[in-house]
């Protein structure tokens, strides 16, 4: 569905991605891990049109995404959830969700879609009149996911969904991610929390210094001594099953 080929991108003269290729087939969770500064966020921003690539191809189905703006990509059925959620902090939960349905074209179309999301996230229905910025960190992340769901995307790009969250909330967020995937949504997730992403992803890419360092199933990644040493530390940390 999403195909990235030989992508080169960065800021100004600084080339951060130096020829990255990856595929996200329909209905699959793909995780992208790698050290800080490897270009993980740059990858998502370039795919979603916030940054223009220097070279390379990005296609969604048969559509070329290079040169499109983020709002045009949103209308093609791809959602983006920024690192801290990207909420409209001064607006209510309900207003945030209604804006999630903006791409559906009218408030009449967005209404039932928002109701469907309330079914899935009953906690948000109780908080519908509350200002988004006053929610807890975990609730804000749930709202960001729920808002991306309103437009009924085929593909979601998530930038570090577990960043700056307490461990109990991380479990909740990942439970929601698995639930979205069961609805048939493909996800491309950039993540620092390696154990968490390896537990849900069907396919993993390791990005290092702007290049692909690994591409395969999570099991293969765990089996590869070299990659484990480089990116997972020497053997799995105590208490987390390998």
């Amino acid at each position, binding site marked *: 569905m999403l195909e990235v080929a030989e992508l080169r991108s960065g800021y100004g003269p600084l080339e951060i991605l130096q020829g990255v290729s990856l595929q996200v087939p329909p209905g699959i969770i793909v995780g992208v891990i790698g050290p800080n500064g490897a270009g993980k966020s740059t990858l998502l921003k370039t795919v979603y049109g916030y940054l223009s690539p220097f070279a390379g191809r990005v296609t969604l189905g048969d559509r070329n995404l290079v040169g499109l703006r983020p709002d045009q990509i949103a*209308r093609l059925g791809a959602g983006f959830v*920024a690192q801290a959620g990207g909420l409209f902090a*001064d607006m209510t939960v309900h207003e945030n969700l209604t804006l999630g349905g903006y791409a559906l074209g009218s408030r009449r179309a967005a209404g039932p879609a928002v109701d469907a999301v309330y079914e899935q996230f009953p906690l948000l229905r109780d908080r519908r009149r509350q200002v988004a910025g006053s929610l807890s960190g975990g609730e804000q992340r749930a709202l960001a996911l729920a808002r991306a769901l309103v437009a009924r995307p085929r593909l979601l790009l998530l930038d570090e969904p577990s960043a700056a969250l307490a461990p109990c909330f991380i479990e909740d967020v990942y439970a929601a991610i698995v639930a979205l995937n069961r609805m048939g949504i493909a996800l491309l997730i950039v993540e620092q929390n390696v154990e968490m992403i390896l537990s849900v992803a069907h396919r993993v890419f390791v990005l290092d210094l702007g290049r692909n360092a690994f591409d395969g199933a999570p099991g293969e990644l765990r089996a590869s001594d070299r990659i484990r040493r480089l990116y997972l530390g020497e053997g799995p940390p105590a208490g987390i099953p390998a």
Partner: protein
Amino acid sequence: MLDVINVAHGEFFAVGGYLIFAAVVLMHWPGAAGVALAGLGAFALGLAVYPLLIAPLKRRLGRRPAGSLYLVLTLGLSTFMQSSLLALAGGDYRRVPPLAPGILELSFTGVSYQRLLVVGMASVLLTGLFVFLAWHRQGLAVRAVAQNPDAAQAMGINLDRIFSLTLALGVALAGIGGALMAPLFNVYPAVGFPLTIKAFAITILGGMGNLLGALFASLLVGMAESLVVMVIPSQWQNGVAFVVMIAVLLLRPQGLLGRASSR
């Protein structure tokens, strides 16, 4: 809301005045049609400002900071519009008859019906603006873009379209204001300029991008201007707004209702 201060706002007020003059005096249309023409005309002109002037500058700048460039740009537009109005309509004062003639006699004073009409229309338009921003899909989009443009884009919101719409709505209100005030002010090319400066004072007083603050600030400035003549000579009245503005900038630079962290 745009982070662009439009210094040419007052010229759209003047455009509204000339449009109602053309409609009511030259073409003998009813007053309401003249007000509608002023609003629609200013809106149509306003729609062109973002794509023709501001967007190209923004594209050229890229990630570099704009500094005072937008201010200079709209100052250029302001001067251009004033000289165009002078060339097209001449420098004469144009008189527009009151849309609501007559005076309401109260026991202690008299108020012209035209002034009451202005107050009534201002309340209706302001309520309409609040309802639009709170309920309409595009109104929500305007607020979303003001708060978090990157996230708004991920919702499928076309930033350029929202910027154009916001600017056009703002100047349409100025155009309607110009039409309603024309019978009280007379119309001439520079009629809007002092109002732009006053609007500046009100915007700073209320806190940039804060609509409720602007409402509060405009009431405060109006009251201050009216009441201060009891203690100082009336020829000093026009300076009052700016004394208040300077005092607020020194004491509370974020505006009366603005939050210190917001910008």
